[in-house]
């Protein structure tokens, strides 16, 4: 057997390179992350981010490149670490909701729902049917909101500028709905433990109907621009493939997992907010590449519209907040004449309600995947521990597997297709 003497490792030169990339790790740790070829100087170490137009925020990647081919792609996260989980421990249950808005800020309602669902499960609250249906409508709109930003930025990264402008145009329609119901364009905090903050205004129905009317046509427009576009196909088909087993092993969920052919959707597997009342399909792919992820999400638009249509038609009348006064504030008119209600109102907003001791996990299917909340109560009005199972964090993990062997330019498409939000990754 012919043995080749390996090029001696030039430790000094490498240490300089480690300082160049300014990672918070030691040289020994870096050695384990890159291939031996990097140590001999055969491949190149390169930094990408955290300020980079197509890392979707402040993701930083350390790339090991052989020419233009990616050998290793090591994510360095934490540039947006906000300490939300820790901050939540010092707030009452109600006041955690605005923080959840700010984790995955493209899907605020899904986060609200996950947290409120966990609180409801811990305290044991029944939610009125009207509130559940309205939640479903809003959650599906949120999914569309999240997917629209994904489609716009993903297309922008690959080079289709106009799609971005169209998507943002449609997104404004959904933001108008948010604004009508909650008063805020993005940070809604509209879903509360026990139901909704208030009933939706009448204009809500017109706005939703407008989305239902307009959107299918716009969807055809996007498809025309992209799906059969040879350039789009060149950049997406066969790029960033992952098998179903690997995707499950890495903890991928949402469209990224479904693109590999696994039919897992929290809405079907563990229905919440009466999702089991509605008839809808789970679109799946076969190859698990960038193009399949794209196709899955595009089909989800249609399914979302289908669910909204059903929920709107079958929306029952009734209250939108539970009658359980433990968590529900007394109605305003009662405060005017009842001393007890006034005190109760005051206590509820200052001290908050108490949740029993215990630990619950509640997950929803947000636009990006399974968004779960692990909530641990200690009998007081503040949680002992809140943990968010952020889909973006888990979907980001296999980036090395996805990117390895592809060209540097394809990495941009891969990052776009796994649809990460750094607020969700770092929290």
């Amino acid at each position: 057997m012919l043995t080749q003497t390996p090029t001696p490792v030039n430790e000094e030169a490498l240490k300089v390179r480690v300082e160049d990339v300014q990672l918070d790790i030691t040289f020994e740790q870096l050695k384990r992350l890159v291939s031996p070829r990097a140590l001999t100087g055969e491949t190149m170490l390169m930094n990408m981010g955290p300020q980079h137009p197509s890392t979707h925020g402040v993701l930083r990647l350390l790339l090991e490149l052989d020419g233009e081919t990616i050998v290793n792609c090591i994510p360095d996260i934490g540039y947006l670490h906000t300490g939300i989980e820790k901050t939540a421990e010092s707030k009452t249950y109600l006041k955690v909701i605005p923080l959840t808005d700010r984790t995955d800020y493209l899907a605020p309602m899904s986060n609200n729902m996950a947290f409120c669902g966990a609180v409801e499960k811990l305290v044991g609250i029944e939610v009125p049917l009207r509130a559940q249906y309205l939640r479903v409508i809003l959650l599906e709109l949120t999914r569309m909101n999240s997917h629209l930003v994904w489609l716009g930025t993903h297309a922008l990264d690959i080079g289709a500028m106009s799609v971005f402008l169209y998507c943002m145009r449609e997104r404004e329609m959904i933001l108008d709905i948010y604004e009508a119901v909650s008063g805020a364009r993005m940070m809604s905090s509209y879903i509360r433990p026990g139901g909704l903050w208030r009933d939706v205004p009448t204009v809500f129905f017109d706005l939703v109907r407008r989305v239902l009317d307009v959107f299918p046509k716009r969807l055809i427009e996007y498809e025309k621009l992209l799906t059969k576009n040879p350039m789009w196909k060149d950049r997406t088909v066969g790029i960033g493939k992952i098998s179903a087993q690997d995707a499950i092993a890495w903890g991928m969920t949402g469209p990224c997992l479904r693109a590999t052919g696994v039919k897992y959707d929290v809405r079907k597997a563990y229905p919440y907010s009466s999702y089991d009342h509605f008839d809808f399909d789970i679109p799946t792919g076969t190859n698990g590449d960038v193009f399949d992820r794209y196709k899955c999400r595009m089909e989800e638009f249609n399914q979302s519209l289908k669910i909204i249509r059903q929920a709107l038609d079958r929306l029952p009348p009734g209250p939108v907040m539970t009658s359980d006064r433990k968590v529900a504030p007394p109605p305003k008119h009662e405060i005017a004449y009842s001393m007890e209600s006034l005190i109760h109102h005051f206590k509820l907003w200052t001290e908050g309600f108490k949740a029993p001791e215990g630990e619950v996990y509640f997950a929803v299917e947000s636009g990006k995947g399974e968004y779960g909340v692990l909530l641990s109560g200690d009998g007081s009005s503040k949680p002992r521990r809140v943990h968010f199972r952020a889909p973006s964090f888990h979907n980001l993990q296999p980036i090395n597997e996805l990117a390895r062997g592809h060209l540097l330019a394809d990495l941009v498409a891969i990052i776009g297709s796994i649809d990460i939000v750094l607020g969700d990754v770092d929290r």
Partner: protein
Amino acid sequence: MGLEQKLGDLGIVTTTLERAVGWARTRAMWPLLFGLACCAIEMMSTQASRYDLSRFGMELMRASPRQSDLMIVAGRVSRKMAPVLRQLYDQMPDPKWVIAMGDCASCGGVFNNYAIVQGVDEIVPVDVYVAGCPPRPETLIDGIMKLHEKVRQEPLKKWQ
């Protein structure tokens, strides 16, 4: 067309160099393409279809700090990000301006904790603070107009 008709036959405008330069600087500010958190999404909306920042000659976001003269700090700055932000600021050529967009960038916002820099003015000088969580696109545009006002009044001497 328009301008020539207004000027009549004169063909000459008198103004000070300072004012001309100040005016020119506001007409084509190139912001740094630099999104941090939720506010960055509203910054994107400001640029996109409905609010259309190109009305102010600002549609061109530059990803390289060396080509931009306005930094919109859109979002919360974590302690890990702070040195990077400062480095980006240092890389921008003079004259340069900074807008702190949103409560987080202005004062820490809802995150009064260990992870977030309590106001980006701890690390870079800020010209305009835009309030809101996130500020509506109109609010951001208002902040930009305020900055334009400020830039127009800046003396030329400062940059010597």
